């Protein structure tokens, strides 16, 4: 049955259905409904909802809950996510699974509460300190947001790498019909033989993000790097629209990805053979699929709600095989399909 839900609410409900037992937060717009939904529904399902005294406290509570072996989540919006960065790096270093939701707003600094995509670098290239990666998934519809939250919990548990849902204010606030995923059978959630569950009757376990011995820390890092290579090999996700005969390829994700679908339709109605590649996993990034398309499509136009952050990855993928123009909006301004269409016309041969 389809229900009409806000993106923020669908993310929260999906987390509960994924077996999230502990949710820690500090409120911020435009993801307030996510907090409200969790406050209302998680305790009813036997989970813990806790509004911490700060973002820093919330992410460290996530660390504690994850170390104890339960599925756990936090959510915030851009400046709040910045505050969580130290804790996120610790999660990554300690190989602790967790889901972090960033409903992006305009930045930098306090910015505003309008939709933006200026946190791409922070999400995909680190953000916190050290050589770590997050699995980053970028939904473009409310339905996809619900599905990717379920996936994020599974991937995070499987690889012991924290996963981030990178959404934006528009997706968080808008309502669409959703077919909610079935709740997971808790018996099927991966066992965590490393979790700190009380050492009575067994050898103690340790969860640490550091080793004072450089050789030891190097080994820990190599384990992380091996895991990242495995994720890159198996977890790249993307969607293609009308790429088969395209003469110009748009690359856009999240809210821009869905707007770009409208642009493709408008362009084709005017005889321009446009296509779209929409990255769903921003890390691992779909370098290979973009490279393959750039072999035969002469123009690859990146469209973002930023000054060109994903654009860098698109150019790494294309490596000179095609022209790589960019169109972006800043500060929470969202371009209309027609504005992007005129950009497409400029670059289509």
């Amino acid at each position, binding site marked *: 049955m389809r229900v009409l839900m806000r993106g923020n609410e669908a993310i929260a409900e999906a987390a509960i259905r994924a077996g999230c037992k502990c949710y820690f937060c500090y409120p911020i717009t435009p993801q307030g409904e996510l907090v409200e939904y969790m406050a209302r529904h998680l305790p009813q399902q036997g989970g813990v909802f806790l509004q911490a005294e700060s973002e820093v406290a919330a992410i460290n509570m996530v660390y504690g809950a994850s170390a104890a072996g339960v599925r756990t989540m936090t959510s915030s919006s851009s400046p709040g996510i910045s505050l969580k960065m130290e804790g996120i790096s610790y999660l990554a270093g300690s190989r602790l699974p967790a889901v972090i939701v960033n409903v992006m707003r305009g930045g930098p600094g306090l910015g505003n509460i309008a939709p933006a995509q200026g946190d791409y670098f922070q999400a995909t290239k680190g953000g916190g300190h050290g050589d770590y990666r997050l699995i980053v998934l970028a939904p473009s519809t409310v339905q996809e947001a619900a599905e990717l939250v379920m996936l994020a919990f599974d991937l995070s548990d499987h690889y012991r790498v924290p996963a981030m849902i990178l959404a934006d204010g528009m997706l968080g606030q808008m309502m669409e019909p959703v077919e909610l995923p079935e709740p997971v059978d808790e018996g099927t959630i991966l066992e965590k033989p490393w979790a700190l569950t009380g050492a009575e009757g067994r050898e103690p376990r340790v969860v640490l993000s550091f080793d004072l011995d450089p050789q030891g820390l190097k080994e820990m890092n190599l384990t992380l790097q091996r895991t990242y290579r495995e994720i890159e090999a198996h977890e790249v996700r993307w969607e293609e629209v009308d790429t088969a005969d395209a003469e110009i390829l748009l690359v856009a994700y999240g809210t821009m990805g869905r707007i770009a679908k409208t642009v493709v339709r408008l362009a084709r109605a005017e005889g321009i053979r446009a296509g779209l590649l929409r990255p769903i996993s921003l890390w691992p990034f779909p370098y290979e699929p973009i490279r393959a398309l750039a072999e035969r499509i002469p123009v690859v136009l990146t469209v973002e709600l930023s000054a060109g952050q994903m654009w860098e990855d698109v150019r790494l993928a294309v490596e000179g095989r095609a022209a790589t123009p960019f169109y972006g909006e800043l500060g929470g301004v969202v371009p*209309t399909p027609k504005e992007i269409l005129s950009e497409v016309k400029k670059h289509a041969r």
Partner: protein
Amino acid sequence: METGVIFAGFGGQGILLAGKVLARAGMDQGLEVTWLPSYGPEMRGGTANCTVILADEPVGSPIVDAPRALVALNGPSLDRFEPKVAPGGAVVVNSSLVPRPVRRKDVREIPVPVNDIARELGEPRTINMVALGAAVRALGILPLQAVIQAMVEELGERGRKRLVEVNREALARGYAEAGRFLA
């Protein structure tokens, strides 16, 4: 086919709910829908708007360049959104509050004294449903009954019986009122 509708007015006039009821009715009828609110730092008495799209295939952009209908519950909303309406589109104007007629000649003007009707019904808070009823008639995409059903579902959880009844009347009154201006 995509049909965009913009609801706009003062915060507190219930335009977000009116849009949500329309979106829900569309969903119940098997359409693809989006509902996108303005969510700035707004308050009662400030301005608010939402955009609803009804479509027969998945909706791309939830932003509408040229809505097929505008519901303007106050003057500033008419000033702001009138220029955007698609040629041939409908403009439902709250003639109780908006002091001027629609300027454009290529749109269908549907003046409805929304506040007066709501007062006659004995429930001033139904202005949003009176306006929605008029918009439903102007759009001609969804049966009024589907919208009434969506309103009942929407208010069902929090609504008292009397509230549901008066909102049903409000939708019907708006629907009938708009009929006077449509062939």
